[in-house]
């Protein structure tokens, strides 16, 4: 039994395994089949100041080695999120830290939803700022691919909340390190990466787009090498905690991210394939550490940055 506990931006977590935003709903949906008290943390689906229908259907399609999605951040809006028993009141009972993912179409929207959550912060461990969704027409990735806008969003949120901030970065940039530095300088306590890769799939028989939004985010195992590389590069740029994600399906995948410099990992698409994978990954990391005589999971974080010839 290795020590899996971590301190992530001041948040005490029993292990480094987190659910990725959008893949685990608001935790209640999976509570019958996933023991929430085993998880490091849960990240809930993106919340905006206003209710959002999201995109038309079809919203998902399977592709080789992964899937595309363009849900479009459907959510009940901050009022209902705070008051409805299925959302924040439920999340306050969840036996692990809760990260609330937030988004907006304008910088003011981000600040508005963050301020509302600051006033209701009991049971919220951190805010994850989504500046990287590829599937909405306004905001989203537009903020995450412009250094100044990315910093402006983070600063606006920083000004209205004392909660730890995790900024979720887009893979759709040339120099990820610049974005990592930019959001950390603006006040982000940690970063998470990568969001999905903007993608497209076409049905050649019907000459139609497989996703109604046409452009959709690629996730799943095929994404993993890109994500590992970007976590590695982000770790070279900043010292804050990193939540690494992108195609993690196994404990071995998770350990790759940790070695590349992630302090914690998030699991997304793999939950759709196998909800049981969350516990399997946690137990698998533990077993791997035991097998290698490593007493503490923190001891493998970023080892690939140490004196490699």
């Amino acid at each position, binding site marked *: 039994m290795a020590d899996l506990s971590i301190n992530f931006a001041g948040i005490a977590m029993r292990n480094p395994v987190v659910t990725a935003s959008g893949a685990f709903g608001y935790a209640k949906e999976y509570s019958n*089949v996933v023991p929430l008290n085993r998880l490091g943390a849960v990240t809930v689906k993106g919340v905006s100041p206003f209710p959002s229908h999201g995109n038309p259907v079809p919203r998902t399609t399977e592709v080789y080695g992964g899937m595309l999605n363009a*849900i479009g951040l459907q959510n009940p809006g901050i009022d209902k999120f705070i008051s409805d028993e299925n959302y924040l009141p439920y999340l306050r009972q969840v036996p692990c830290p809760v990260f609330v993912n937030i988004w907006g179409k304008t910088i003011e929207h981000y600040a508005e939803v963050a301020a509302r959550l600051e006033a209701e912060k009991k049971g919220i461990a951190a805010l994850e700022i989504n500046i990287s969704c590829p599937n909405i027409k306004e905001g989203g990735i537009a903020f995450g691919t412009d250094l100044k806008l990315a910093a402006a969003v983070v600063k606006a949120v920083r000004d209205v909340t004392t909660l730890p901030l995790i900024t979720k970065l887009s893979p759709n940039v040339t120099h990820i390190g610049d974005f990592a530095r930019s959001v950390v300088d603006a006040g982000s306590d940690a970063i998470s990466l990568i969001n999905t890769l903007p993608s497209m799939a076409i049905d050649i028989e019907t000459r139609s787009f497989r996703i109604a939004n046409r452009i959709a985010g690629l996730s799943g195992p095929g994404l993993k090498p890109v994500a590992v590389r970007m976590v590695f590069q982000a770790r070279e740029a900043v010292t804050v905690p990193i939540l690494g994600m992108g195609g993690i399906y196994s404990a071995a995948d998770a350990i790759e991210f940790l070695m590349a410099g992630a302090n914690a990992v998030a699991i997304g698409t793999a939950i759709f394939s196998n909800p049981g994978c969350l516990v399997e990954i946690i137990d698998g990391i533990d077993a791997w550490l035991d097998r290698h005589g490593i007493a503490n999971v923190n001891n493998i974080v970023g080892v690939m940055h140490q004196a490699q010839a």
Partner: protein
Amino acid sequence: MLEQYQISAPILHNQQLHGDYYQLDITAPAIARAAQPGQFIHVQLPAMPDHVLRRPFSIYDVNPTDGRLSIIYKVVGKGTEHISVLKPGTKLDILGPLGRGFSPLPGDIPSVIAAGGYGCAATFLLAKRARVLPTVLLGGRSAGDILLQDAYESLGCQVLVATDDGSAGAKGLVTELLERVLYEAPNSWIAACGPTPMLKAVGMIAESRKLNAEISLDRVMCCGMGACFACVIKRKANTPEKWAYARACSDGPVFKANDIWWD
């Protein structure tokens, strides 16, 4: 709280019914005991790690005593093609029972089940557990698309068949049979499963006659648990647009026809 399980379920039988239609029986005791008519299971494709999404199948029949659970499926793509060659003893990773199923059929008024194609699998348990047997209407393109007629008849149901080409039963649509049944029994309760245009037509018939109808809607699903919002359908709501997206997997797949916002 709903009872839901993720279990490893061995295949008992996996056999072709006819054409592209197959019946799969598995041993899944916890799910078989908890299953309600109209619910579904979500099946991981074994040994296909590059296919990341599960496949949903309506629960056709269960035996709570020996834990057997059956589905009917049609080979329509790589996933179902792969399932069709799996041998008894192979273990399938199953989530279930998922979704909201049908209300029990009423005991005080007649009821009618209208099913298109293998939609008849989703309504079988409903008929099996009915206090008063429903009339069952089966529709399909041709005789090869009519399934489970014997199974429904062995429950004691009267079964009427319609095919587009007239190769079995009446030539025409299952909704024409429905109109005919409602002429004889105008206060019937309706339950339906099949292609969306058929369900929309059922909904229109029910609305015009002020009848209760419950329909099971089939959508491309992703998580199956209500978490991802991939499988949404428009449901009437108190919004500026007069609709909001509901999840087929967890708010449905069975909805009151009158609640659906048809585009």
